[in-house]
């Protein structure tokens, strides 16, 4: 065990000879960058068409078939898919684990709220600034650990999550009060960001969130298909490969971290304007770990996995609640999911389910034609 060694060791550093894995999810066959599904069973144009249709349905079809309560849940799924997207990129592409993303969400909300009370900036600008500030904070948190191993980074982010929780409990969310924190006891416990004029209603705001989410996904795609994506792929191969190719390892790691934090900040701002606003009880420390769990389960190698992760995090608890099942069981389930994904299915559900379905399909076909099954069995 030479990790994490940040000091001289007696042994020759085995950087490459044993091809040490750089991604926490080593052992899985990563899908080519930019693949949105897990499997390239469809060709490019067909896939784009399917996505366009799905997107149209999501934006215009869904609000019509569900009631207000579920619309709010689905809005939160859309918002959280931005966070899970960032974390998925961080883990799956850059091979780094962060345990404070959920709290960065809170920071994004805080920044947006504070700015709104202090200035009269338009909503899109609020989101952008919230994202950038959160990105910078994320980068600052990660910076000390970037030269050391990924394990140290995970630890620092876990501690940061705890730290941010403490500060948040003291500062509270801005609610129009004075001072730097902008919070007064007279204000309510929840703070809500006013929505943009073009999207004040629930349905309109839902579509607004879908649009922002789409922008974030395009941003992710641009990264993955471009120079950062290639640099991250080199990093995943091994640090030595990346350095030998001229990649500034620290910079690209920092960039991945800042990007994931940026996305969390943007999502936080959107959340502040969602139904019910935000209050500090929504951000307990363990939610960052739950976030990690669903991102792993959803699948970190494909962008679609982010949506699955958000569904697990927001839709599933609401469904269980509806059916009267205790949501603590979900925590247990997600814990099992983490172990299962790390052990056997690094690609997550997005990768695993199509494989399972394909296996199921083969199994069913065998059942349907036993003679063919016999012939197959006879072949080598």
């Amino acid at each position: 065990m030479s990790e994490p060694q940040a000091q001289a060791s007696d042994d020759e550093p085995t950087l490459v000879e044993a091809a040490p894995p750089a991604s926490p999810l080593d052992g899985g066959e990563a899908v080519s960058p930019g693949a949105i599904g897990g499997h390239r069973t469809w060709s490019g144009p067909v896939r784009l068409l399917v996505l366009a249709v799905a997107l149209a349905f999501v934006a215009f079809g869904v609000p019509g078939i569900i009631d207000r309560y579920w619309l709010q849940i689905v809005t939160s799924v859309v918002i959280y898919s931005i966070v899970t997207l960032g974390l998925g990129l961080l883990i799956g592409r850059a091979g780094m684990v962060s345990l404070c993303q959920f709290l960065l969400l809170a920071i994004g909300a805080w920044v947006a709220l504070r700015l709104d009370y202090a200035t009269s900036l338009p909503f899109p600008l609020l989101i952008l600034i919230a994202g950038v500030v959160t990105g910078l904070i994320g980068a600052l948190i990660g910076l000390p650990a970037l030269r050391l191993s990924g394990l140290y980074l995970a630890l620092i982010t876990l501690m940061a999550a705890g730290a941010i929780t403490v500060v948040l409990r003291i500062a509270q969310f801005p609610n129009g009060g004075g001072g730097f924190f902008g919070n007064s006891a007279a204000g309510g416990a929840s703070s809500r960001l006013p929505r943009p004029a073009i999207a004040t209603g629930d349905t309109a705001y839902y579509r607004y969130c879908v649009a922002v989410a789409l922008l974030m996904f395009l941003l992710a795609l641009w990264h993955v298909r471009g120079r950062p994506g290639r640099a991250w792929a080199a990093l995943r191969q091994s640090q030595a490969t990346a350095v030998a190719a001229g990649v500034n390892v620290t910079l690209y790691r920092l960039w991945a971290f800042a990007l994931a934090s940026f996305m969390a900040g943007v999502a936080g701002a959107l959340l502040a304007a969602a139904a019910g606003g935000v209050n500090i009880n929504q951000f307990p420390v363990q939610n960052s770990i739950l976030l990690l769990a669903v991102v792993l389960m959803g699948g970190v190698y494909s962008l679609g996995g982010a949506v699955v992760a958000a569904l697990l995090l927001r839709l599933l608890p609401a469904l269980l609640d509806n059916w009267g099942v205790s949501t603590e069981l979900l925590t247990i389930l997600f814990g099992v999911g983490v172990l299962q994904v790390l052990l056997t299915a690094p690609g997550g559900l997005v990768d695993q389910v199509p494989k399972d379905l394909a296996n199921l399909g083969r199994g069913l076909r065998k059942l349907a034609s036993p003679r063919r099954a016999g012939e197959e069995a006879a072949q080598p």
Partner: protein
Amino acid sequence: MPDLKPFIVLGVALGGVFAMSGVGLVVLYRATGVLNLAYGAIGATGALITWSLLDAGWVPDWVAYLACIVFGGAATLLYGVLFGPPFSARDPLVKATATLGLLLILLGTMQWVWGRDPHGITLPTSRWNREIFDARVSGTQIIGVVFAIVVTTGTAAFLRVTKVGTAMRALADDREITATLGVPVRRVEAAAWLGSGIVCGAAGLLLSNLVGLDIVGLTFLVIPALAAALIGRLQSLWVTLAAGFLIGIVQSSLTAFSDVAEYRTLTPFVLAILALLFFATRQRETDVGSSR
């Protein structure tokens, strides 16, 4: 300057438990490569089991207290036996992330079984008090300090002197080669898991008394222990011990200053960040091969 003495005394006791937990984490990490982030959760679960046993009154009190320690050892050992081997060749980051799975399983179970009502355990040693340096010190707090020192010295001696201990050090250095030397790797690792788990159970019991039996709170008291372990570079038992005490003392002393008292639980984070910055700058000077 307010009178810090009582806070320092409290802080030493708290720090002692942090230090003890930190040492348990480090030893396990060195022997198996697993940084057990579920450490606090295991301790919390054990403490809740103790609470239930005390509440139900089926067994004598001392058995209930012992149950926490036994659970700590058993649960940790079980995880190690089940999930140690499949992960043994993987990156330490993967191994640590896997323990987060265990954390969630335990957290969900605790919340489901014991709900969100407050619970409390008062160890009999807490009722025993003494005045030291103008501060009331309870027996539990003294145990915290004593245990920390005993565990650290005991572990250090164990690693150096006994066969199993030496085997653990060899494992930490190079698992494959150690295996080829005929060392029963799985059994040595199991010993590390068990030992670490027992310390975890004891720490959980002590903390539940010193700090309170709050499920989430106890689970995340792994953070100060981690900070101590991190300052010790996940290697040195003595630095971890010192760091644990330091964190406890500083955190507790800050209570005396009303301006910053609310922020005192940031102490582990701040100290860990400072330590990391220090290591990072030192590494730039003596860069022997990039680490990942």
